[in-house]
């Protein structure tokens, strides 16, 4: 009977082809730049990362997490047992029964995948992905029947007796189809590639700190000495300029489109779709065109015309620069990605090339960068006018006092009249709580956030080093700032420059700091009476730094019951103001700030509480009628109980 040699041979061939494909694929990744990763430790940690870190994200969608656990778990177990039972020919009824059970599990999982694909949401890629559930079913059914004799359910002769040649042919076809998709396709670029690349991506991830519930959001500094090296290039020009594990990460994409569904630029009709971007990177690393891409396009750009290769300039044909400049760096895509792919890193890497090599930052980008370089603030104001906003505030200067408990990092809000209201409110609160604080005054410079997100890492590093040099002159144990962008830079990005100025210094966002003051009882607050309030999470406070609770607790401490928006917390939608997006200003069909205000309107709120001057500016830019927009510091000041006035009031009583 022909099964005895045919099917083991087929399995062996499929596995051999899979190995060849794997070697080829690994070579494509290794064309990238070296990166320091502990390979062994990564591989050892990989199963744990799959079961915890990755599964935790998939678990947000219970249907999918169960489906995937059944299908994926069933498949991995089946593959191992198939090798034992059918390839090595181990004659054990227990193994055969175990194989039948795992195939059954896989079959049930595949049915749910099939059901999901009957009426798929628009974010999901179609094309080859539509045949995946059928391939899974073919694999499960084919091997199930093939394993029946080994399990002793049917006698060995059953096949030839009953079905004869026809059954053999059908069974063989099912097995070839199943293995073609699941073994061969895994390493030759089919939908199952996600399992192979994804597992290795988890092992060799560029931000190992993210596993085990950690957070790693600071951009990696660019080695500026590359500028004068022979053949050196700043940023990423070609796919091979990415680190090798970034290329691996792109290959891990399952095209689930969770990123697409949360991307504010995509929703606004700007030419960005994070999923397509990652797929274009895959086209780039493997060479070819995007003709086979079967998901949503970049809004306004037709699919099929993008071509790329490992050594071709990405922005020459693979993707339009406007795609890169549409990103607000809000990290919603990264937060949502079940494969933990780092979209924002890739986008900023490519922006670095456009800004630092090509000098093609769009619209006001060049002007803003010139201003930052010449005046240390984005609008080109005289550096000596940085403290004009506080002419009436009598703020202690670090230059005079040399030390204080708290350093108040004012940020460039100092130059903006709307932001100055937030700054004044915060100063009033600090004074009311009798906090020992000081400011840097004219010695403070722009934190470098905008320059860095616009791809000018040279200017960012210059500012960071000069700021650190100033900070190192003074003694303080805390830095507090009202600007989440400065907060992120100081807390997460200034540590890469070999300065000990921030050693032992805690950096706080003002809402966190104010919350601790309120909880300690240093600030007395009246209950807030002013209608419904909703809270907008700033990206750089929430997703970048994990602070969702302090602002809410502050609002609750004034007796406010927050009417949460549909997109809030880690799913908060960007105001459109991050990543230099208002500066590069790529046209779309809608404005991101308008969409965010619609979210607020749906709650029926009369007041949107915000913790970021950039969000304040963006949301207040929405035409009226709309809810009021106020920073939490401003709301607090309105409810502040003046201890002296209170005393008087009591005497009167």
């Amino acid at each position: 009977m022909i099964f005895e040699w045919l099917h083991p041979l087929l399995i062996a061939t499929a596995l051999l082809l899979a190995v060849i494909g794997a070697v080829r694929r690994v070579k494509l990744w290794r064309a990238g730049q070296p990166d320091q990763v502990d390979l062994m430790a990564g591989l050892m940690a990989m199963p744990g990362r799959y079961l915890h870190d990755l599964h935790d994200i998939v678990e947000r969608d219970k249907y999918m997490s169960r489906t995937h656990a059944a299908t994926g778990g069933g498949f991995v177990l089946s593959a191992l047992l198939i090798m034992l039972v059918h390839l090595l020919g181990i004659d054990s009824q227990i193994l055969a029964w175990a194989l039948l059970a795992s195939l059954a599990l896989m079959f049930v999982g595949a049915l749910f995948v099939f059901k999901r694909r009957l009426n798929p949401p628009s974010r999901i890629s179609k094309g080859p992905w539509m045949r995946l559930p059928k391939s899974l079913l073919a694999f499960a059914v084919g091997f199930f029947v093939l394993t029946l004799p080994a399990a002793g359910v049917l006698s060995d002769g059953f096949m030839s007796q009953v079905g004869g040649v026809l059954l053999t042919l059908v069974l063989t076809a099912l097995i070839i189809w199943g293995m073609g998709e699941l073994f061969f396709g895994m390493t030759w670029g089919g939908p199952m590639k996600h399992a192979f690349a994804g597992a290795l991506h988890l092992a060799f991830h560029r931000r190992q700190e993210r596993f085990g519930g950690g957070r790693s959001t600071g951009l990696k500094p660019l080695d500026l000495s590359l500028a004068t090296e022979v053949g050196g290039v700043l940023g990423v020009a070609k796919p091979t300029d990415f680190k090798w594990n970034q290329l691996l990460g792109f290959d891990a994409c399952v095209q689930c489109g969770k990123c697409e569904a949360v991307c504010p630029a995509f929703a606004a009709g700007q030419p960005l779709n994070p999923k397509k971007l990652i797929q274009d990177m895959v086209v780039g690393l493997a060479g070819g065109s995007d003709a086979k891409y079967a998901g949503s396009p970049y809004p306004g750009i037709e699919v099929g015309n993008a071509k790329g290769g490992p050594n071709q300039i990405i922005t020459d044909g693979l993707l339009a620069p406007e795609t890169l400049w549409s990103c607000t760096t809000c990290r919603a895509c990264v937060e949502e990605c079940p494969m933990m792919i780092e979209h924002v890193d890739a986008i900023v890497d490519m922006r670095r090339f456009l800004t630092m090599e090509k000098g093609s930052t769009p619209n006001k980008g060049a002007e803003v960068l010139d201003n930052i370089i010449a005046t240390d603030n984005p609008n080109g104001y005289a550096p000596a006018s940085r403290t004009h906003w506080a002419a009436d505030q009598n703020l202690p200067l670090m230059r005079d006092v040399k030390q204080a408990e708290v350093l108040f990092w004012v940020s460039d809000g100092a130059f903006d009249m709307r932001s100055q209201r937030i700054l004044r409110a915060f100063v009033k609160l600090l004074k009311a709580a009798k906090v020992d604080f000081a400011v840097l005054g004219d010695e403070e410079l722009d934190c470098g956030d905008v320059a860095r997100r616009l791809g000018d890492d040279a200017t960012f590093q210059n500012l960071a080093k000069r700021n650190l040099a100033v900070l190192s002159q003074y003694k303080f144990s805390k830095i507090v700032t009202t600007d989440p962008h400065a907060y992120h830079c100081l807390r997460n990005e200034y540590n890469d420059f070999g300065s000990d100025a921030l050693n032992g210094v805690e950096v706080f966002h003002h809402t966190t700091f104010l919350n601790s003051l309120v909880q300690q009882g240093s600030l007395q607050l009246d209950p807030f009476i002013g209608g419904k309030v909703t809270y907008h999470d700033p990206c750089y406070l929430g997703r970048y730094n994990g602070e969702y609770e302090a602002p809410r607790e502050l609002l609750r401490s004034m007796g406010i019951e927050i009417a949460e928006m549909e997109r809030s917390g880690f799913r908060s939608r960007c105001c459109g103001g991050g990543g230099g997006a208002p500066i590069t200003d790529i046209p779309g069909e809608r404005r991101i700030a308008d969409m965010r205000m619609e979210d607020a309107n749906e709650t029926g709120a009369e007041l949107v509480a915000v913790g970021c001057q950039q969000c304040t500016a963006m949301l207040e830019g929405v035409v009226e009628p709309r809810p009021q927009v106020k920073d939490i510091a401003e709301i607090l000041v309105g409810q502040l109980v003046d201890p002296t006035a209170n005393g008087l009031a009591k005497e009167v009583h």
Partner: protein
Amino acid sequence: MQPNSSQKLKIVTLVSVGKHPQSGRVRRADQDSRAVELGLRLSADQADGLVVLHAGDPNEPSLRSYAGMGLTAINVLQLDPAADAVAPLGEQLHQSGADIVLTGVRAESGEGSGMLPYQLAEKLGWSIVPRVADIVSVKEGVAEVLQALPRGQRRAVKVRLPFIASIDTAAPMARQSAFGPAQRAAMTVTVVNAETDTLRQSWHEAVAKKRPKRLKVIKAKTAAERFKAATAKSQSEGGRIMKQESAGEQAQAILDLLVEEGVLR
């Protein structure tokens, strides 16, 4: 701007050290970088491209921000800071066989008299076209140039090569300066000897002060007068139009006014 590609144009742009009006920090000067931009556009289709020339210190950091516009090299005539740059620049331009020399209207730092292009033109015996907004075409040794006039007006001028053009702020904006090319550009240094600018050495430099504004004294006594003063078009009062008088009388009138206003003492 359609430069005739059949003839090879040799374009030289002179650049100086700029100074940011708000921070006082060195930078690429606004007009000079527009001159580099125009030079780059004119020489875009030519292999040897544009020559950018600076007289001064080759280690001056602001030169890098010109280089960031995509220059492979900047030629620097290394001079003593106290030296007069006109003679060595004239010498260099004479030898280089340049067709068009582009400069800013006036430098943002140093003397900033705006005299350099005129002195060079005089020295070389070339024409000078001041305040140029654009060079439209160069055909058969004649360039069609647009001069910038107040209120966005333009004057088309034809000028025979070679000539010097000082570039106005109305010229196209300079392209972005990128960090990578800026770091890579070569500084080709030629050490030159030049006469010390003795006249300038005797000068005393001080920060310029804004001219004081005359206070508006409200003479109106009644609301109606105040209303009229606030709404009426300001008409220049006083003053005289002198057309018939002799040049001597006219000059005397100007002198009297200057003394009266306290400009001259």
